[in-house]
């Protein structure tokens, strides 16, 4: 009898690996843990969980004002969420951390599996086990056919399989396997995903997106700098100094609506120039539509929105006149009732102080299909039918040169409150009508133009992302549809001259058992009976 004894412990000198070894062991264990399938599963779940708040809470990158509203209406709780980056989920530290860990985990499991894969692709199918009856699928039968005939038949029946024949004492056995494409697909899938994740992240660094409103009566926009945009968002590696130069000119805009005032069709004739055309001054036409962006020099130009620009002409007491056509923003997208502010400097006034008492802003409402009810202007439809404005005329210091940027759609309300801007008229005007101010200034509502909101997008990696996504999808198809499976056949000669041969067939699905039963039934039927099968 032997007993195994632990080596005697020396309490004075317990076994202690050196620090270097400890660190190494720690790293190795961490790496193993991180790249195990279970960790990948947990990380996948964490990723799903971490993505969820982005769907439930307002997000800055989609809607800043909603975020502010949410924070102010939820007190300390709202600000806490803000500190924890819950309004910028997809750029938050914790989301990126999970993302990064998953990527490491993915690399960690792909590396060994790739080696394994190469080995497997060259390996022969395993030996036929001694006891085939242990396999999940098994069949045994007697037959009058000779072993040699069966050998021929098995070769034919299993022609698409990777096979090994082995001679045995009283006969032979065949070990066959197929469905190697599953592993190929699986690796493709995971590599595709890895590539997709990497290029998606790179794209965040090198892409930009800008929006700009352009008048649709020949207005122009050039992609020559950030300041040409109304809003601009860019990745870390973009500083706006070397945008791909191109220009667009918006010649018109057409919207069509259904009888129920639902938008049915948007269309804009534009012209653009890029590359050599910029030097030669050649304009090329393009029909800009929703779903049909203009693609040029790696940038895309989208037709995102549209609106109205009421045009006003002011005739000053000295006889000079000024005309402006400023975009107003719809407050109701269904009826295109719009709000805005058209701002004028009085011409010919050189004295700064004087000038600041004479600036004029026209603010109020614009209705493309006007309807006045109880003195209040509303719009009944989005299309131009009976355009009308209901305006307040403000005079005083607009603060245009106060150094603070102002919205083009409104005046600085604090100036109205403290009296630096005074309301001097309020009136409804139809096209062609005018009003007169106390000092003889006349303001005329001339008519309406349209504006379009263009978005320019640039993302140099999106083609790669698509490529990897396609690899991933193809790999997924192979890895889910192809089953890795084995079949073994063992044939024994009948004992001493008896005419019957014993044929034994067994099967095993290497991956999921689901669905192999039927196929095995078919294969074994053909092998056992030697018939071509149904």
């Amino acid at each position: 009898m032997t007993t195994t004894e632990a080596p005697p412990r020396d309490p004075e000198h317990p076994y202690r690996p050196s620090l270097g070894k400890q660190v190494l062991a720690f790293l190795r264990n961490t790496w193993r843990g991180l790249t195990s399938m279970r960790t990948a599963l947990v990380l996948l779940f964490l990723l799903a969980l971490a993505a969820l708040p982005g769907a439930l809470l307002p997000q800055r990158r989609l809607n800043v004002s909603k975020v502010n509203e949410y924070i102010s209406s939820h007190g300390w709780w709202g600000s806490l969420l803000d500190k924890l980056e819950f309004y910028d989920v997809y750029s938050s530290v914790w989301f990126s951390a999970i993302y990064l860990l998953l990527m490491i985990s993915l690399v960690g499991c792909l590396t060994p599996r790739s080696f394994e894969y190469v080995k497997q692709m060259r390996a022969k199918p395993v030996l036929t086990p001694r006891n085939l009856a242990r396999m999940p699928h098994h069949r045994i039968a007697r037959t009058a056919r000779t072993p040699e005939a069966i050998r021929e038949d098995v070769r034919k029946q299993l022609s698409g399989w990777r096979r090994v024949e082995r001679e045995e004492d009283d006969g032979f056995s065949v070990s066959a396997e197929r469905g190697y494409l599953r592993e190929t697909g699986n690796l493709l899938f995971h590599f595709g995903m890895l590539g997709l994740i990497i290029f998606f992240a790179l794209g965040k660094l090198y892409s930009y997106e800008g929006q700009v409103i352009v008048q649709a009566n020949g207005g122009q926009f050039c992609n020559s700098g950030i300041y040409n945009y109304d809003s601009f968002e860019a990745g870390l590696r973009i500083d706006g100094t070397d945008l791909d130069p191109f220009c667009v000119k918006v010649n018109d805009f057409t919207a069509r609506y259904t009888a129920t005032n639902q938008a049915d069709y948007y269309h804009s004739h534009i012209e653009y120039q890029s590359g050599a055309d910029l030097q030669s001054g050649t304009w090329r036409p393009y029909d800009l539509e929703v779903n049909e962006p203009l693609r040029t020099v790696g940038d895309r130009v989208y037709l995102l929105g549209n609106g109205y620009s009421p045009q006003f002409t002011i005739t000053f007491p000295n006889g000079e006149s000024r005309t402006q056509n400023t975009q107003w923003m719809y407050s109701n997208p269904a009826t295109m009732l719009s709000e805005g502010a058209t701002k004028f400097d009085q011409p010919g006034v050189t004295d700064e102080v004087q000038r600041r008492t004479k600036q004029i802003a026209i603010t109020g409402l614009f209705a493309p299909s006007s309807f006045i009810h109880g003195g209040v202007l509303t719009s009944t439809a989005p299309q131009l039918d009976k355009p009308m404005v209901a305006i307040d005329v403000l005079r005083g210091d607009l603060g245009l040169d106060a150094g603070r940027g102002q919205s083009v759609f409104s005046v600085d309300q604090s100036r109205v409150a403290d009296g630096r801007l005074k309301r001097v008229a309020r009136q409804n005007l139809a096209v062609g009508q005018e009003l007169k101010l106390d000092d003889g200034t006349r303001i005329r509502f001339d008519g309406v133009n349209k504006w379009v909101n263009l978005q320019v997008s640039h993302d140099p990696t999106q083609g790669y992302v698509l490529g990897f996504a396609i690899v991933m999808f193809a790999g997924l198809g192979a890895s889910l549809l192809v089953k890795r499976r084995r079949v073994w056949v063992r044939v024994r000669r009948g004992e001493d001259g008896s005419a019957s041969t014993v044929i034994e067939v067994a099967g095993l699905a290497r991956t999921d058992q689901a669905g192999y039963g039927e196929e095995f039934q078919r294969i074994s039927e053909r092998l056992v009976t030697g018939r071509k099968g149904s």
Partner: protein
Amino acid sequence: MEINETLSQYSDLLYTTTVAIYVLALLFSLFEQAFGAKGRRAAERSKQRVLVGSGGLEDADAPVEPEAPREIGRPERIGRMGAALLVLGALLQLSAIVLRGFAVHRAPWGNMYEYGMAVTFITVVAWLVVIKKFPVRHLTGFLLLPVVILMFINGTLLYTVAAPVVPALQSYWLVIHVSAAIIGSGVFLVPGVASTLYLFRTAHDRNPAKFARFGPKLPAADVLDRIAYRATIVAFPIFTFGVLCGAVWAEAAWGRFWGWDPKETVAFIAWVIYAAYLHSRATAGWRGKRAAVINVVGFAATIFNLFFVNLVTVGLHSYAGVS
């Protein structure tokens, strides 16, 4: 083009009729489930098959024993009628969808009502395929329960009159992306139900006192697991394709292929959950119960995606919303 009001009304009528027929089929199937012997038999048969597979020798030379002819009791007959009603309902629902398409002259899945109508149709068709392959007809009621509830909400709260779609939706991607999403989501509802039943069944297997009346009438856990897995591996690639096409379309319509719009986010979450399900089946210690729980969570995400996202959050996909 003009909306054809008459066709649209016929479509609505067919929709209502379909719901009524599904309710009837549900009742018939519950009757079979409650009183039929089929569940127990199916469970026993699948158990036997497992035994054969795991070691028992089978003599292939013996003539295949024909299954003993079973007497068909009343519950079975009613169950069959239920299945026939299900087929009828599916045909009516298909007609409702087609008529809607003719009424609006476009693919009939341009708003939430139409989307919900198509998803539940796919679920029913997927289930018809399942009961053809597996002896689980008596479970039809458990599938129809969520289907009928969804169709009811869809036909009342979410009903939208037939209308053309906004310019962003006038694209062939509407056909490709949305139909892939519909088929994926529709089929995903089947494994959700199967995995839920699986959890009941395994709870009963572990402790027969639990669900003592209900448990034994369910098919063997193995069968339910197989249904869940097979349906998932059909739905998952289709859903993946739908998400990919969505990204390609978003690039053309919204200026970026992925922007964490609420719908995109929830689709991503659902995708990750189902990927986790497939992994869990290849991970020791996660097969069985945990995998089934993950699948049920995926089911919840799919339903959430179908309804919650459009109704509660505001994103670019909200065009499909109800007004």
